[in-house]
């Protein structure tokens, strides 16, 4: 978990947005929505890992058990 991850997520977001715009222009609205959901789920996996790391760290630093 470091700063590279942030820029990777930003790249995924811009790419997915570009793809959705392209698909919308081509008249494939259902596939565009599917691509949006797939992008969100892809990003959610890294978010979940980072969040579990954050919670474990906060628990150990502030002695929350």
């Amino acid at each position, binding site marked *: 978990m470091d700063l590279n991850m942030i820029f990777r997520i930003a790249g995924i977001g811009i790419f997915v947005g570009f793809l959705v715009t392209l698909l919308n222009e081509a008249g494939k609205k259902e596939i565009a929505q599917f691509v949006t959901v797939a992008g969100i789920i892809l990003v959610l996996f890294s978010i979940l890992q980072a969040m579990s790391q954050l919670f474990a760290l906060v628990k150990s630093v*502030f002695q929350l058990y």
Partner: protein
Amino acid sequence: MEIWQIVGVALLVTIIAVVLRKIQPEIAVQLSILAGIAIFLLVLGKIKVIVDLLQNLADQANISSYYLIIVLKIVGISYLAEFGAQICRDAGEGALALKVELAAKIGVLILAIPIIVAILESLVRLLP
């Protein structure tokens, strides 16, 4: 991690998030969560130093570490709750943010019960 690096990362992420919010608002929210986590991880080393200092001072002043741990727990709970509530509010879910804050307040109150009881007991002992 120095302050200018954190400010630089925050400004960069802000610019990217403003662009993303127009084309993909969902991923912009996730990006801001990740940036918050990254910045906390960067300052974590300094927080550890402060906590160690507090513990040393409490040992020297003969304060029971039981009370110090309670204070630390309260700081942790309020940090986490604030983090979650701000992200909920950013995404437009103000009601959910208020509920998170309510839960944190109740958690803090429950943790503070031993301190309140100790203060009341010493008050009762002082009063004739």
